């Protein structure tokens, strides 16, 4: 079976299960809503302050929400040892990872599409003129988070302290993406909105590196 078709089968299975349980999306939605609301009410920032803190806040919210969600994606496979059934199937092991990466990416993207306007209202920053570019930056960063997060979730699924371990492993590896994402978002939400090509290149470049490494190491990553 081709990698595309087996990835598609795993992705479809992930979406079907999530549409029935809402386990992952509920976790993310409530966490982001809490961060957006709490910071807004606690600091009541002015427009200028909002422009300074919002990029960091958006990335902080989505990073930790993603971490919470990603922890669960392989734990789900342990309940009935379904990972063994996937490993037993005659498919490229990378299809298991890529199917889950795409599913996690879609769940986070949906959250971002819902919450960027909410952040905009809570912090009184008009994001509509730069919405397309902002979503591009968020999607590129989110893809990196989904790739690395899914890989580390597979590696830490059987660890006892996985809730602590996953963010600790993710932060250093994702630092370039988070820095580029925050910088690009700051430029977009600044007084003179624009976006530096270097940040987009950095986000895209790291996505390519993460995907290539995942593809090369997939056999090892889904081993016992």
């Amino acid at each position, binding site marked *: *079976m081709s990698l595309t*078709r*087996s990835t598609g*089968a795993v992705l479809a*299975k992930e979406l*079907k*299960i999530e549409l*029935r*349980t809402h386990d992952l999306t509920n976790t993310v939605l409530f966490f982001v809503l809490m961060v957006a609301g709490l910071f807004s009410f606690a600091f009541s920032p002015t427009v200028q302050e909002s422009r300074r803190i919002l990029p960091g806040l958006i990335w902080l919210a989505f990073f930790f929400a993603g971490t919470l969600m990603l922890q669960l994606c392989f734990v789900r496979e342990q*309940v*009935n*040892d*379904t990972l*063994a*059934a*996937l*490993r*037993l*199937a*005659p*498919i*490229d092991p990378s299809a298991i990872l890529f199917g889950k990466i795409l599913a996690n990416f879609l769940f986070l993207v949906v959250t971002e599409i819902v919450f960027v306007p909410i952040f905009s209202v809570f912090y009184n920053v008009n994001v509509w003129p730069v919405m397309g570019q902002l979503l591009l930056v968020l999607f590129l960063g989110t893809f990196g988070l989904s790739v690395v997060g899914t890989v580390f979730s597979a590696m830490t699924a059987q660890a006892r302290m996985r809730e602590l371990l996953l963010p600790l492993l993710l932060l250093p590896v994702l630092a370039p993406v988070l820095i580029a994402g925050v910088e690009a978002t700051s430029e977009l939400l600044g007084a003179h909105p624009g976006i530096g090509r270097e940040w987009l290149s950095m986000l895209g470049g790291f996505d390519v590196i993460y995907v290539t490494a995942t593809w090369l190491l997939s056999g090892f990553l889904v*081993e*016992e």
Partner: protein
Amino acid sequence: MNFALPTSLGVEFDRVEKRYGGLRALRRLSLSIAPGEFVALFGPNGSGKTTLLRMAALLVQPTSGKVRHIGAENLSPVDVRRRIGLVAHKALVYDELSARENLSFFAKLYALDNAEERVGRVLGAVGLAHRAGDAAGTFSRGMRQRLAIARALISEPRLLLFDEPATGLDRQGREWLEQTLTGLHEAGATLIMSTHDDSVASLAGRSIWLRAGRLERDTAAADAPLERGVRQ
């Protein structure tokens, strides 16, 4: 039940050792199971039965030694996996998906022809046709075991590995399991089954006892004493 299986697959363990940290689950174990054999594995808990079965399924790699699948010399590891079916301790199915969706998903991963027709046939064969649309999470232990067996059979494997397949089955379920195992064996499949159930074990043509990761005894079933004390 009628199973039409292609040529079966055997498995050979050559001085196989498996360590989990400091624990030695298998200790330089050598064993050969020919294509078409029906073997019952016995031994107390922790004797290495599950590790041996998972190693035969290519899910566990030996720390040292070699595992070779007889009849698969020219096949890639992916093609060998295609010919192996495993019924494990856990059901290896998704609770959130229905019985039909579970089997359709695995049929898709195995790129099977006429997948939907085959899913319907296997569901009927394991007696779950009337619950095909129900989520696996709502099934009783016995029904989950039937679904687990259906999942293992969907790809028509040539080497079938059963880890305590009678667990959770009532008398009717055990009778059904015995018929299924007999049907598979008669169709030429290689069966390796760990069990504590004498009735199911009596179907096997060969009995192997493991203790502390070592091969303790290997006999033709007709010569094997059936006392539980020996088996457990």
